[in-house]
C-alpha cells in the first residue's frame, strides 16, 4: 500500500555509479521506497563492433568479436566461428570441438563463481565475495595455463582451435575441478541452509514462468522461472551432442532461484568436463581454411553463462563479411529486469539487476614497476606478482597459507 502523503519522485542511477561496474542509466520513479517504474537507457558501451567487423577480415574478426565481452569472450568467438564454418561447410576436427566445449564449461564455472561473489557483495555479504573469488582463482589458473590468458583466451580460429590440451594439462584440469566441485557443493549447502541468503533473496526480483517466456528472458534468469530451455541440449553445438548432462531449472521464480540454478549448473559443468576430458578424441585441432569465405548466411547459437548468445553472419564471397549481427544475452533480459523491479523496494534494485548477471571485464598479465628511488625498471611476471602480493600481506599480519592448506586437505 502506498502512503498518500509520500511524494512521487525520480532518481537517476548511473551512467557512472559506484555500485554498478558498467555504464548504464536507470531512471527510477519512486513513491516513498517503492519503485513505480524504471526507465533504462543503454548504449553507453556501444563500440560499433558490428560495423567494424564488416571492415575486417574473418580472422581479424575472431579477435575483435572475442572482445565483445570480457567474461563470455569464448562464447562470442565460438558463436562467430561456428557461423563462418557453417557457411564455408567446414568439417571441424572432433578434438577441436571437444576443446571448445572444455573452455566453454571452464568459462561458465569462472563466470558463475564471479557472479556468486558479486551477488554476495550486493547484499552486504562480502565474506561470500572473498570466498568465491578466492575459489575462482583455481579455474582462472587453469584457463591461464591452457590458453595463456585469464580472459580473452584466443583459443578459437576458423576451422578449429589454436592450442591443444596436453595430457599433463588434462590431469591438472581434472584435479582442479575436483576442488571446484567440493567448493560448489559447499556453496549449495550454504544457499540451502544459510538464513541470511534465503531471507534476503527469496521473493526478490520475481518473474513468473509465463512472464519469463513473454518477456523473452534467457539463461539462468529464465531457467529459475522453470523455463526449460538450454541451447546446449536443444540446439547442440561443439561436443554437447556427445555428452550427457541435465538442464537445471528451479521454480522459485526469484533471485534465490537464480542463485540455486547457477550453483547447480556448476556441478553440471564439472560433470561435463569429466566426460569431455576422458573422451577427448585424438587427431588434429584445426584444418586449413581459405581466406575467402563463399557467399552464404548462417545463424549460430551458444549457451553463454548468462544465456543464449546469437550470432548471424552473412558472407559475400570475399575475405570480409557482409554483415555480422550479435545479440548478447543481457539485451534479452532487460525487459525482464523492468518487470522485476516494478512495485519493489529501492533497496532491492542492486541485487535484482545483478541477478541477471550483467558483465564487466578487466585483466592484466604483466606489470612494469618503476622504482621511484633508484629509477630502476623491473618487469614482474605473473608468479612474481603473486608472490609479491602474498609477502606484502604476510608482512602486515595476513597469512592465508594455512587456510589454503586446510582447503586442499
Amino acid at each position, binding site marked *: 500500500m502506498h502512503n498518500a502523503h509520500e511524494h512521487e519522485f525520480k532518481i537517476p542511477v548511473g551512467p557512472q555509479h559506484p555500485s554498478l561496474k558498467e555504464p548504464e542509466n536507470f531512471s527510477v520513479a519512486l513513491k516513498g521506497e517503492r519503485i513505480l517504474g524504471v*526507465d*533504462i*537507457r*543503454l*548504449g553507453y558501451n*556501444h563500440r*560499433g563492433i*558490428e*560495423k567494424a567487423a564488416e571492415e575486417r577480415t574473418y580472422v581479424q574478426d575472431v579477435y575483435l568479436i572475442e572482445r565483445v565481452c570480457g567474461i563470455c569472450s569464448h562464447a562470442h568467438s565460438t558463436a562467430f566461428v561456428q557461423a563462418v564454418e*557453417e557457411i564455408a561447410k567446414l568439417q571441424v576436427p572432433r578434438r577441436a570441438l571437444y576443446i571448445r566445449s572444455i573452455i566453454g564449461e571452464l568459462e561458465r564455472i569462472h563466470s558463475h563463481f564471479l557472479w556468486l561473489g558479486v551477488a554476495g557483495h550486493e547484499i552486504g555479504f562480502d565474506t561470500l565475495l572473498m570466498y568465491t573469488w578466492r575459489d575462482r582463482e583455481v579455474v582462472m589458473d587453469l584457463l591461464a595455463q591452457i590458453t595463456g590468458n585469464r580472459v580473452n583466451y584466443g583459443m578459437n580460429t576458423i576451422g578449429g582451435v589454436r592450442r591443444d590440451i596436453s595430457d599433463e594439462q588434462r590431469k591438472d584440469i581434472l584435479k582442479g575441478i575436483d576442488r571446484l566441485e567440493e567448493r560448489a557443493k559447499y556453496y549449495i549447502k550454504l544457499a540451502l541452509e544459510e538464513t541470511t541468503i534465503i531471507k534476503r533473496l527469496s521473493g526478490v526480483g520475481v518473474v513468473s514462468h509465463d512472464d519469463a*517466456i*513473454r*518477456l*523473452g528472458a534467457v539463461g539462468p534468469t529464465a531457467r529459475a522461472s522453470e523455463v526449460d*530451455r538450454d*541451447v546446449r541440449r*536443444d*540446439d*547442440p553445438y561443439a561436443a554437447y551432442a556427445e555428452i550427457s548432462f541435465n538442464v537445471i531449472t528451479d521454480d522459485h521464480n526469484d533471485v534465490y532461484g537464480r542463485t540455486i540454478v547457477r550453483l547447480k549448473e556448476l556441478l553440471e559443468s564439472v560433470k561435463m568436463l569429466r566426460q569431455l576430458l576422458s573422451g577427448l578424441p585424438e587427431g588434429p585441432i584445426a584444418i586449413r581454411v581459405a581466406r575467402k569465405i563463399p557467399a552464404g*548466411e*548462417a*545463424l549460430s*547459437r551458444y549457451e553463454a553463462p548468462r544465456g*543464449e548468445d*546469437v550470432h*548471424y553472419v*552473412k558472407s559475400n564471397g570475399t575475405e570480409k563479411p557482409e*554483415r555480422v*549481427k550479435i*545479440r548478447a544475452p543481457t*539485451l*534479452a533480459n*532487460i*525487459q525482464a529486469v523492468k518487470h522485476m523491479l516494478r512495485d519493489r523496494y529501492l533497496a532491492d534494485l542492486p541485487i535484482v539487476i545483478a541477478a541477471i548477471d550483467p558483465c564487466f571485464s578487466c585483466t592484466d598479465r604483466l606489470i612494469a614497476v618503476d622504482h621511484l628511488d633508484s629509477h630502476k625498471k623491473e618487469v614482474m611476471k605473473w608468479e612474481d606478482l603473486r608472490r609479491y602480493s602474498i609477502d606484502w600481506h604476510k608482512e602486515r599480519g595476513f597469512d592465508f597459507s594455512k587456510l589454503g592448506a586446510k582447503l586442499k586437505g
Partner: protein
Amino acid sequence: MSNEEGTRAEIINKLNIAEDKISILRPRRISCEVEYSDFAEAFKALTADLKFNVLCAITGLDEADRLSVIYHLAKDDGTVLNLKTSVEKNNPVIQTITTFFSSAEVYERELVDLFGFKVEGLPEGNRYPLTDDWPKDEHPLRKDWKPKQ
C-alpha cells in the same frame, strides 16, 4: 521425413508460399522469405500456429535499394527459422512486433538507429544504442555510411 522437412511442409501449407521461397539450410535451420505485404499474416501464423515462440534476434540488412529484416524465430525443439522480408530504402516503414514479443523493443530500436527503419507502433522510449546527440539522419550500418576521419 526429417523434423525440418516436416516443419517446412507445414509452413508452406500454412503460409501459402512458393516452395522456392523456403529452404532448409542444415538440420534445425530453415530460411524463408516473404513479401512485406504478406508479413503480418505470416508472422502471426508462425508464432501462434506453428509454435515459433522464441525470438532469438532481429537482423537488419542494407541491400542496395532495399532494406531487409530477418526475424530469427526458434521453436522449443531447437529449430530456427530465419524469416526475411524487405522494404524500399526510400520509405523503410515496418510494423512493430512488440505486440508478439515485448523483448523486441530494444531490437527494433537498433533497426531505427543503425539502419533508419521507421517502426510503426514501437512504444515511446529512449533511443538505443546511439547517443542522444547523434544526428537523426545518420545510420552507421548502412553501407554508404563511413566514419568521419
